């Protein structure tokens, strides 16, 4: 059985009449990478803040490494590395000074830890530069380094990809995979770049208006992401007529004036192609496609009309 490192039970957070989190129950297992997906204001950061001890739940409980009492949880936080919202650094201090302070706070006795994480996030050349002189992307990488310098078992990263260039996004992805594999780390990461999360995560937690609407593994997501035939043509209404005449209850969606997605009968691609040809419908594109994570998220949260 896989070890549970973090678990929330009916976690609720209200700010006056506004409910930021509504009975959120999630379980994070060791050596998994959880992609935490939700719109702005869905409650992602609030949940991360509660776990990190920066905010308090209105209702519900949570446990870290199996410890549920507030005092024990506080002690267990030394095994969590996190970066929440913008990088929290002293701008007048150098990169190394900020990291050294964090290493001391985490109680990590390994003096080489700072150099190691600087190398991991590719910040060695600027280690003696003041943080205020760094670019946004560099600050973001420093923020990830700060989360890692204490050798945590759980890494909580809130929008760590923001401000990173493509090269660094790839490097961060590789690094997180490596940490998960080699150090048995559990990673809880939120991002709006869903295509990137798709390449990174092993599990997904979808949150919408404070409620967890779905939790899926990568395999489950792949099964659920529906395949469809993409038909691009200027005669969408005529295509609909043809499909409805020749297929039994076709399931489709009109995406635009020139694009239609057919979800049923996907095994009959040849038949459908011949059908369109026989009716002399000019098709600019005809392909078998799959819902992306982004599209799936929009489907389950009602983001698509």
């Amino acid at each position, binding site marked *: 059985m896989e070890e549970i490192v973090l678990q929330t039970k009916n976690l609720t957070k209200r700010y006056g009449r506004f409910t930021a989190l509504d009975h959120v129950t999630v379980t994070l297992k060791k050596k998994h990478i959880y992609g935490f997906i939700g719109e702005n204001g869905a409650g992602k950061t609030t949940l991360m803040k509660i776990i990190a001890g*920066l905010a308090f739940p209105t209702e519900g409980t949570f446990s870290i490494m199996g410890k549920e009492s507030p005092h024990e949880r506080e002690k267990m*936080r030394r095994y*969590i590395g996190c970066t929440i*919202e913008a990088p*929290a650094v002293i701008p007048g*201090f150098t990169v190394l000074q900020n990291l050294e302070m964090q290493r001391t706070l985490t109680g990590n006795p390994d003096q080489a830890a700072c150099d190691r994480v600087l190398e991991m996030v590719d910040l060695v050349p600027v280690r003696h530069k003041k943080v205020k002189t760094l670019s946004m992307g560099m600050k973001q990488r420093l923020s990830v380094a700060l989360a890692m310098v204490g050798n945590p078992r759980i890494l909580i990263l809130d929008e760590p990809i923001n401000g990173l260039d493509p090269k660094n996004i790839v490097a961060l992805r590789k690094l997180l995979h490596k940490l998960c594999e080699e150090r048995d780390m559990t990673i809880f990461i939120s991002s709006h770049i869903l295509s990137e999360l798709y390449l990174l995560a092993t599990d997904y937690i979808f949150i919408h208006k404070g409620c967890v609407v779905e939790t899926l593994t990568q395999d489950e997501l792949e099964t659920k992401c529906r395949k469809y035939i993409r038909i691009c043509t200027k005669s969408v209404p005529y295509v609909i007529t043809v499909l409805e005449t020749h297929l039994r209850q076709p399931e489709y969606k009109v995406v635009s004036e020139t694009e239609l997605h057919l979800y049923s009968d996907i095994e009959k691609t040849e038949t459908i192609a011949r059908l369109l040809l026989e009716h002399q419908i000019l098709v600019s594109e005809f392909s078998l496609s799959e819902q992306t994570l982004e599209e799936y998220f929009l489907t389950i949260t009602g983001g698509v009309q």
Partner: protein
Amino acid sequence: MTNQLKVSMYKWRRFWVLYVAYVILGAVGITYGYLKLSPAEGAYEGFLATISDTSFVFIITMVTAGFVGSDFSNRTIQHEITTGHSRLSVILVRALPVFLSAISMHVLYIVSTMIGIWIKSGTMGQHFTGQDILWLVTVLMQVAAVQSIIQWIAFLCRNAVVGIAASILFTFMTCNVLRNFMESRIFTISVFCFVRESSYETLIPALMIAIVVIFGMLFLTYQTFRKAELR
């Protein structure tokens, strides 16, 4: 908590505002001693003139509010919480550098005034007595007590700029303005009026009040901060 204290002291040693305050208070003290005080009684005169002087407490206040508030503005205070340190220890590890800087600044002001007058007169004048030492200790405890109130204000504001503004206003109202209107016994032994005489009847209650204020304010700061949500 030891690690937290190490980090807090590290930041305190590198807090440039503190050194600016040292330079200002040192320069003001020397100038005051050299130009304004009579050299008749020597450097001891400088001690008497500045030990209970609250005119520059706002500078000490500014350093305290800036030091505590900057961790909120930079959001670096969240590192201490997220690495498993208690909220009480977050307060305590700040209190020590705050008290140290406040005490050292007031001592610097007194000593630099004495140096200013000594340059002019070349004499120490009257010698210090044991009672003077108790007087100094009492005043320094009062300085620390005022700063414990400022630390509470900084934890209440949770922003460097707002905290500094609120603290300076508070110090002006209590240590500078209030003394012009209040002469009652309670005010003269309160922490807002550094004791002006070295009699035991004044020093002992003033010292007791200062100690009570320090512990009371640390408790109040904890109550303010224990359930506070951080950005």
